């Protein structure tokens, strides 16, 4: 098969959580450009509509679903809505996430639970539901979890103390390995992207506080950009990565390499 064909997503459908902006929208653009229909979810309808209009201008067919992943009971109906519209889900990108900055000794329990619930439990429930309703019966699936370099190592407390975020992303890293092994025989690959620091609503406070530190620690001396996740997202969403599973790949300008 030609390498162009390996990267072709014509006839595929993707569900991307947190797809209305930032990294999620960037990945929706990449998958849509290569032929996939994309369902994007977020909490805010207005932002979803704006993203959908943006994708439509690029010639990408999209479906928007307003959903709060903190509400576990809402996940199955949301997946069923997407299946009703698209018939199948070939690609799932667990992208939605949140962070909380507080010293461990003072970290509020409710904030800890919120971060673990959104960053780790929701990807588990979504993968479980999409797997059971579509990927396992069809013997095909590509799951991409958005981890973080904060899931690979601890964070310098002088930078920002984010114990719940680091713990949740560390969980995503090993969730990826474990699910990848468990579902390999179903022809479902499960891999993770570990982004470094990309400008976003979530990272704004951190960048404002420690931009110079981030630059000093990043060999490429820049933050992540609007196109920096596209290539890897496409690789992991396509048949070009058919023999890859359980892997965590950093996209961080070299931050985690030094």
């Amino acid at each position, binding site marked *: 098969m030609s390498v162009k064909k390996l*990267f072709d997503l014509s006839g595929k459908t993707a569900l991307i959580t947190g797809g209305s902006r930032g990294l999620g929208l960037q990945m929706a653009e*990449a998958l849509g450009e*290569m032929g996939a229909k994309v369902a994007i979810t977020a909490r805010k309808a207005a932002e979803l509509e704006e993203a959908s209009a943006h994708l439509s201008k690029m010639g990408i067919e999209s479906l928007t679903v307003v959903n709060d992943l903190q509400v576990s009971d809402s996940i199955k109906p949301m997946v069923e809505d997407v299946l009703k519209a698209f018939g199948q889900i070939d690609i799932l990108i667990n992208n939605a996430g949140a962070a909380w900055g507080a010293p461990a000794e003072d970290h509020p329990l409710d904030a800890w639970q919120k971060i673990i619930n959104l960053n780790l439990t929701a990807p588990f429930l979504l993968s479980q539901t999409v797997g059971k309703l579509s990927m396992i019966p069809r013997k095909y699936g590509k799951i991409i979890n958005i981890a973080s370099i904060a899931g690979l190592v601890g964070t310098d407390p002088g930078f920002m103390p984010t114990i719940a975020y680091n713990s949740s992303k560390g969980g995503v890293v090993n969730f990826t390995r474990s699910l990848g092994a468990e579902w390999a025989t179903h022809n479902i690959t499960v891999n993770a992207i570990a982004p470094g620091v990309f400008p976003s609503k979530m990272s704004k406070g951190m960048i404002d506080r420690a931009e110079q530190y981030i630059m000093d620690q990043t060999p490429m001396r820049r933050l992540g950009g609007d*196109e920096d996740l*596209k*290539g890897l997202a496409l690789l992991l969403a396509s048949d070009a990565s058919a023999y890859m599973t359980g892997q965590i790949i950093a996209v961080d300008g070299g931050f985690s390499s030094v």
Partner: protein
Amino acid sequence: MSVKKLFDLSGKAALITGGSRGLGLRIAEGGRDTVSRSAGAGADAWLRLPLK
């Protein structure tokens, strides 16, 4: 930039060691599909170099 453009290797040149067969040849074929010219340096070629 479009993702197709990000993967486009038009105008690029690649040097692939061990490119005459196996993994090296497969990688060279992938580059060809995205319009690069590949120069493979296989182990056999090294073995044929005159010894000094």
